[in-house]
């Protein structure tokens, strides 16, 4: 599969990383909020500013956080609204294929990166593998 076969449904850049973010990584959790979110959420969140906000993640999509690219295993029912309305996403490295909580986006068990200002936060949807080849 080449990059041309996939679509970017969400593209953003990290603008600030809260002081509690590293502690939450120890719980396998990375919390995103849009840069316009209330100040009380900044401590626990990676803030970012989106340039493309077409859709939330689906299972099978790829989420790029910093240098890591992670396959989405499961997505809760309120994730799309959270992301498109608030820039909010809870990324959990819990390996679940059914989300435990309605706001969860689940990826493989393992370390999540400590992001830095300027890092990418991007959701890419691979083209369907059974897609008809272009004529």
């Amino acid at each position: 599969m080449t990059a041309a076969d996939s679509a970017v449904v969400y593209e953003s850049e990290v603008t600030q990383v809260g002081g509690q973010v590293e502690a939450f990584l120890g719980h396998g959790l990375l919390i995103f909020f849009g840069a316009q979110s209330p100040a009380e959420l900044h401590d626990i969140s990676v803030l970012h500013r989106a340039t493309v906000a077409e859709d939330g993640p689906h299972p099978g999509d790829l989420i790029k956080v910093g240098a890591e690219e992670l396959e989405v295993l499961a997505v809760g029912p309120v994730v799309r609204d959270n992301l498109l309305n608030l820039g909010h996403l809870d990324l959990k490295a819990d390996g679940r294929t059914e989300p435990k909580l309605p706001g969860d986006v689940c990826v493989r068990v393992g370390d999540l990166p400590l992001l830095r200002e300027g890092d990418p936060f991007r959701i890419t949807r691979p083209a369907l593998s059974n897609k008809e080849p272009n004529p």
Partner: protein
Amino acid sequence: MTEYKSVKVTKGRGGWGGPLTITPTDERPLVASITGGGIHPVAQRIADLTGGEAFDGFSSSAPFDKLAVAVIDCGGTARVGVYPMKKVKTVDIHGTSPAGPLAQFITEELFVSGVKPEDVEEA
């Protein structure tokens, strides 16, 4: 001085915690809607019944210690914990139960979930 009234907020179907009695004061007059997309109907109803001031947390900001209550639409991890951690009474539209790294702060005295406008009554 403004005259404030109290409301009782009861958990809805599938919800957890509460009931909470919410009474704004001159020190804590704000009913914050931390929901995006404007003031949520639950926040508006709490403000209407109590005389508190409804306020959109995503379009302006206020210090924690001005909030009578925070109305959230949290899917379970972040906002459910942040406001209780600061001892702010918290009403979640979604029927979530305590979870996540902040679960220790989420108590029945501070948090109620699964709430719809009809779960807010004059106390």
